[in-house]
């Protein structure tokens, strides 16, 4: 655990208490069993807003607490522990970052306060294929009068159906694969020509597929500069990688704690199964991976707070966290034996969430490749 300030410790403890009492794993199960198409529980999100968690990285001028990325990471870790469904990542981390990194005063004025208080849900719409590939943005934005017209489809948009604001990566020049020629646009979630359809995913939260069919926006909808959206998009995505990694770290830690408890209580052959070395070593190795991943996640968040180049650290954190949740969810099921295979046990929910977070914003392959490129090999 990074050395936390007193305020950070208080924030973490508050998040831990709230998540375990108000948003335990059972809440996600309930959301799933209600067959709702909502990707989060609005009442829980409202509470998070009241506690100020949506504004952790937002400056005080816009009603935030300017508490920084490590602070938000601590909350994401705690909500990750209980698989709490909320737009914290999409809105408070990713969209708030994009607006701060690239927004004009007017854009910040229009959106940041609403985000910080939990009034507005906002999200980034970037990927268009089955795999994370931001540079391959193809959705077109063509100039029309003083504004632009957007045409194309985004495959997986977090909390996309609920979002008041979509931050859309579009191509204004160049070809898919070029980082030049990408432009970010602010589009109202209910703008004419926007069709949002629900994707029912294995993690019971789901996401939206969003089609843009001749969506008209004004010139003031451009976030950052035309053709130079990459300068905002890439650092925004680094925040997405690091924030998601913090959530994943929390899920893996909870899976570990639950399993460790089981190893200490389940008896077979007249002894608790935790006495079997075959399981002890794997628990110890799992713990090693948890600790090394924690170092990476915290380092990435701290680098963001310090304003340092955090690209390699963000990919390191996301790659390690992807490997970790994979290991953690598999081990959780295996060490629980048959009971871990049942729907009634939480192990399955951790496993399904793990597979979605692994793939989201690039899997381990994507981030290993990016890391290698950033390291110059």
């Amino acid at each position, binding site marked *: 655990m990074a050395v936390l300030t007193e305020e950070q410790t208080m924030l973490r403890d508050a998040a831990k208490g709230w998540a375990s009492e108000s948003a335990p794993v059972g809440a996600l199960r309930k959301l799933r069993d209600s067959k709702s198409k909502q990707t989060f529980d609005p009442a829980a999100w409202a509470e998070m807003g009241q506690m100020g968690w949506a504004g952790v990285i937002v400056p005080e001028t816009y009603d935030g607490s300017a508490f920084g990325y490590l602070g938000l990471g601590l909350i994401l870790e705690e909500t990750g522990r209980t698989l709490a469904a909320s737009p914290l990542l999409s809105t408070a981390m990713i969209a708030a970052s994009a607006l701060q990194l690239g927004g004009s005063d007017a854009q910040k004025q229009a959106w940041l306060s609403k985000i910080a208080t939990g009034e507005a849900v906002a999200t980034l719409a970037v990927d268009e294929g089955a795999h994370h590939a931001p540079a391959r943005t193809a959705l077109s934005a063509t100039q029309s009068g003083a504004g632009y017209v957007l045409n194309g489809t985004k495959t997986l948009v977090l909390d996309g159906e609920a979002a008041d604001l979509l931050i859309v990566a579009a191509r204004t020049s160049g070809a898919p694969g070029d980082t030049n020629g990408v432009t970010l646009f602010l589009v109202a979630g209910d703008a004419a020509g926007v069709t949002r359809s629900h*994707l029912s*995913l294995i993690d019971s939260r789901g996401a939206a597929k969003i089609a843009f069919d001749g969506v008209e926006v004004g010139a003031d909808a451009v976030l950052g500069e035309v053709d130079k959206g990459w300068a905002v998009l890439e650092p925004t995505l680094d925040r997405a990688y690091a924030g998601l990694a913090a959530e994943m770290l929390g899920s893996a830690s909870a899976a570990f704690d639950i399993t460790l408890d089981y190893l200490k209580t389940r008896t077979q052959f007249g002894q608790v199964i935790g006495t079997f070395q075959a399981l002890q070593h794997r628990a110890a190795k799992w713990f090693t991976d948890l600790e090394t991943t924690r170092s990476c996640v915290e380092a990435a968040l701290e680098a963001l707070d310090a304003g340092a180049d955090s690209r390699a650290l963000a990919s390191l954190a996301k790659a390690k966290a992807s490997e970790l949740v994979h290991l953690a969810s598999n081990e959780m099921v295996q060490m629980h034996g048959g009971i871990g295979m049942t729907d009634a046990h939480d192990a399955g929910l951790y496993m*399904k969430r793990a597979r979605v977070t692994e793939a989201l914003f690039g899997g381990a392959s994507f981030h290993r490749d990016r890391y290698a490129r950033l390291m110059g090999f």
Partner: protein
Amino acid sequence: MADFGGTDLDAFRADTRAWLEANYPKSLNAPMGEDEAPWGGRKMVWKNPDAKLWLDRMAERGWTAPMWPKEYGGGGLSKAQNKVLEQELRRLKARPALMSFGVWMLGPVLLEYATEEQKQRFLPAIVRGETRWCQGYSEPGAGSDLASLQTKCEDKGDHYLINGQKVWTSYADQADWIFCLVRTDTSKKHEGISFVLFDMTSPGVEARPIKLISGSSPFCETFFDNVKVAKEQLVGKLNGGWDIAKRLLQYERQNISASGFGGGGGLSLVEAAKKELGVDGEGRIADGDFRARLAAHSMDAHAFMLTVRRAEAESKQGSGPSAAVSIIKYAAAKMNQERTELLVEALGLQGLGWEGDGFSADELAAPRAMLRAKGNSIEGGTSEVNLNVVAKRVLGLLDHQ
């Protein structure tokens, strides 16, 4: 008739091929849906009547249990002939005529341990797919440590009385009969267990389905409340059930691994990866990291397949399942888990769908198969327990505890 005489075997192949071609219903060439698995039994609903026809035709020749003796309804084939039959079935890409715990697990131990009356009574019905069996082994407190089971079986003079609970009983709600391990002597652990058979419609039997993480419900909790069982349904000796139980587990592992677990939807891993990850100028999967991991997996799977073949060839000389069966079950579970994981990963977002729009049926099958595969290293004895067995029995390493 000589089993290995080339000409005899060639003639057998020609006959078999001709018969299969004439008798395999063409309508079964379509992929088999999960709800079409031919488990047979009283509750089976045949979606496609040709599947039932196929079962009946195969059963008529005893080819649903090709190597069992003819007097019990089996095919009476030699190993060599059976191999030919399997090859010819594969050549036709034929669906299995019957999937059956009776054929895979129970039948072989009945042949070995049951009385003549019991063999006559139970085996032919298994061959014909009339009786579907389930396995009543595990209990809430007795999983890996199976011998600690507590389900009580009392001698009431002219019958037995059974009370207790089983769990993870696959398809108990669909099965007609159960082969069940019960405790007949509480003063001893292994030597107090007996092996009994009874009808699942007996008064006092209740099976409640348990839902799995993959969304399906093949499992049950099974409760026995004063279930009366006729004494002639005890197999082997009273308190001698543990040897039968272990023998059956060997057949279970052998069958689990021989089938390689299978499943995973109709998608080809390589094709899916090429489609969703793209290819480079030379037609290779563009993502080098994924390609390297896929290559490593493919080589492991290849090595596994060669090992299965070698073990088969070697077992022709010996008799019964060998110790190598334990590593094969372990390796098969690992292979199937890796393969289903790689498919989900290759599909990216398209491999994360649970239901509804935006995904093809094959895509939706992929994550469910991946989740189901997690049970491969648990069912039929966990991988850890299998490795313990290999370490102790095969390698001669002593117990640490």
